[in-house]
């Protein structure tokens, strides 16, 4: 699914380059559940944003679903991202002015799914995750756990093959974190590939393998 070859990310400074990621070689197979770990500033989130096609300023080779991302134009990258990835953020990043329903519907509307289909897909998702009662509430009316649940539903509603999660439980208490991780495990068992960034060994244990980063380097 994912293949990184010598991927590097750096910032140009007055006296040279400051490297955030160095020579990253990583392969993620379909159905894998990878946890990326490492201290602050190790480059975890940077790596995740590269995988999520949010960041285009890097060097090396990156294949996503056999597509050479490093050769794609911006528009093609956006389409690839839109089609195949879902992203879960640490601070949920729900849109405050949209209801739960509208937040979940948003990725579908951006994928030009017809309105009637959108409605049934969103309703199914609300039902599946037991949040039908929350559909007309705004994010500010939900607890942190509920918000992250909605954010995950939003990330998977368009049925992406790959979910990228950046510290998905970072702002949650332990019970809520456990529920979210159980949910990820369930999604993974249903075939979704997951790459998560986490500080927590416990959360990492839900995955199939761990990739550790330090000062931008991947530990062997």
């Amino acid at each position, binding site marked *: 699914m994912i293949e990184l070859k010598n991927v590097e990310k750096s910032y140009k400074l007055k006296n040279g380059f400051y490297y955030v990621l160095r020579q990253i070689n990583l392969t993620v197979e379909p159905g894998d559940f990878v946890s990326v770990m490492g201290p602050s500033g190790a480059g975890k989130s940077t790596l995740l944003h590269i995988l999520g096609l949010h*960041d285009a300023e890097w060097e090396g080779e990156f294949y996503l679903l056999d597509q050479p991302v490093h050769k794609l134009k911006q528009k093609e990258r956006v389409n690839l991202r839109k089609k195949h990835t879902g992203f879960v953020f640490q601070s949920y990043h729900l849109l405050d002015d949209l209801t739960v329903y509208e937040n979940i519907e*948003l990725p579908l509307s951006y994928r030009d799914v017809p309105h009637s289909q959108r409605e049934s897909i969103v309703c199914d998702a609300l039902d599946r995750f037991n949040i039908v009662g929350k559909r007309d509430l705004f994010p500010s009316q939900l607890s942190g756990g509920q918000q992250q649940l909605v954010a995950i539903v939003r990330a998977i509603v368009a049925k992406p093959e790959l979910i990228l999660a950046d510290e998905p439980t970072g702002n949650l208490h332990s019970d809520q974190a456990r529920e979210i991780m159980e949910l990820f495990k369930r999604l993974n068992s249903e075939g979704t590939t997951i790459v998560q960034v986490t500080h927590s060994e416990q959360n990492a244990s839900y995955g199939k393998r761990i990739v550790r980063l330090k000062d931008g380097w991947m530990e062997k």
Partner: protein
Amino acid sequence: MRSLVSQLRYTVRLLLKSPGFTVPAVLVLALGIGANTAIFSLVNGVLLKPLPYPKADRLMAIRQTVPGFDSFPLDYPDYLDFRRQQKSFEDLGAFYGDRFTISGQGDPELISGMYETGSLFKVFGRPFLLGGPFGETEDKSETRAVVVISEHLWKAKFQQDPKVVGASLTLDGRRYEIVGVTPPQANEGGGADVYLPLTQFPYLHDLETNRGGHVLGVIGRLKDTVTLLQARTDLEAISKRLNADYPTTNTKVGIRLIPYLDWVVGDYSASLWLLEGSVVCLLLITCANVANLIIGRALGRRTEVMIRAALGASRKRLFAQLLLETLVLVLVGGILGLVLGFFGMHLIKLACPENISRFQEVATDGASLIFVLSASVGTALLAGVLPALAGSNADLTPALGEGGERSATGSPLRRQKQSFLVAGQVALTFVLLTAAGLLTRSYQALHDTPLGFNPRHILIGDIYLRGSKYPDTTKCRLAWDTILDRLARLPGVNGAAVNTDLPFRSGAAILFGVEGQPDPEPGKEPAAEPQLVSANYFSVLGIPLLRGRTFGNQDQPDSERVVIISNSIARQFFFGQDPIGKQLNDLGDKVGQKNVLYTIVGVVPDVEHNSPDAQHAMFQTYYPYWQTPDAMDLGTVVLSVEQQPDSVLPAVRKTIASIDPDLPFSGGARFDQLIEKGFAGRHLSMLVVSLFSGGALILATVGLYAVLSYSVSQRRREMGVRIALGARAHNILRLVVSQGLRIGAIGLLMGVLAAAILARLIEGTLYHVPGTDPLTFLTAASILCLAALVACLFPAIRATRVDPIKALRE
């Protein structure tokens, strides 16, 4: 479609949730669009909308030119020659504007009307509500006295009687048969209420025989296949033939063709275009201001845009979403602006003198609505595209990472865009301020021009002696004697005088010669504004006698003809001599008649006969009304009163009614107010442009303030560090103020360049003020600098109060 509806719903919800942004933005837009709607309605209604005649663009005013005057009426023989010889027009028609006393329909009343050739109805294609026009036969025959009346008169005097055709109407004591009722047209004839055949004109014989007596307005309808240039060539050829055939009267007389609409509205088209230009400037400033507000707001929405992008929104979708918000804002602003524009237009109409052609017919119509729609869409695009482009350019990683807000990388660029918009606003504001300043200085110069007489405490009104009671010169003279004598004895009246051609009322001119001096070359004869006056006219209006005497008992109807001349005649023709006793003549020998001589008995200062900016004759001549060989039937009574002029009006009317109950005293009004009305157009332009520039100044100041406030809020940590490192209040103050003043200075520089270019365009409308008047430019620059300083000061003070500990923790 459903997607658009849900987008709209979301947009409205979003805007309602941010009243602090939405309300000011909508208000600013409403003001900008409203002002544009009002002014466009005026420009459209007056300058752009065709006159209400079929194929109105084919109508041409035909004017003659004489040295010193570029638009002169035609004389009747010339008119007939042009009509017979021309090949470019379907037909020509001529008219002579006059006033008539209407009686037998309530109180006698003085109304406006026209004597016109029957062909004029056909030329105009004037529609009829009842009956029809009088034809050519009435032009040739005096047997039928017929009249076409206006819809207004039909309603006011005949209560819309459907059988009015065939009824009679008494005008100047003579009965006319009504043959038709015509709807109101474009007020181009000064609101004529009656149209009579030219054959009914009492002095038709004089008209027919007097080549050189320029009194007729002539209108022609171009043939469909003929261009303006071809028609001009055609008429110029005829004019040259007339020059050759009648050298005494037609030498150096040229011909001019003016599209009829331009002729009707020509006097104030420049002012209206100036207003339109100003209001477009205001709209651009509005756009820049709203764009700035949107850019400022985009800061708070950066994360939202990033999330949308991360969830798959393309840049196109994000752009459309952001632009939709501006569209909704503009739509609401546009609706509110339409309402404001509607009221604004009515306010302007109220402030306008009624006699300005087409102003009173202006309305908010389909064209105005289309304009509002176009202006709104244009505004949305202008105000929305830049922020939407900037806002939709999502760089995902910094904002989506935790703490991304602190590492905002877009801020300097955003500040740059905002600064650019503010500099543009400052430039446009400078242009508007300069325009307002120039108009104010021009108006002031016009207003301060000494008139040469004192119009204060003066009541004026017209009396028309035409009719069977005043058949000849003697009767008219006696009537004037009686009227003036009786009015002068009224309590509160200090003096009563009469003038046939009172200043600021009309502007006729006659040519004259000076006895004993070589005859002027044909076409270079001096022209004077002739006025028949009573002896005390000068004292009533406070015009001092510089030399000689005023008219007196020695000047009898049958004695030597006398004249009082303006000082400019004395200077030009009698320099170093005493003009008293010298003589002027009427150049009668040029038209095969004997010269009539007028002995100069007095010299008075020149007075401003028309508005100082109007084209008029250089000289003035005054004659005693009792020496005129023709009956002086129409005159303006001038009363000098002790108190408020209006207070004696009822007594004046009563006195005149006691002399002749059928005699109307028309338009009793204060002279000073009438003169003010002459300046009303300029006053209005000055006022409106000043209002616009004031609004623009506020918007530009707010814009600069917003940019600096944003900048300060973005640089709080920097300020904190600076303060922590020992920067003192004045260092911080200077840092912020210099940033603001730099933007102001760039805008000012652009504004000076733009204003210098635009000044050339409006120079023609200015009076005694150069377009690049240094005082105006300096004042406008000072006002802007002051405003910029005020705008800088508050954010700068806030910056000095940054708590370094708090700022560094943020």
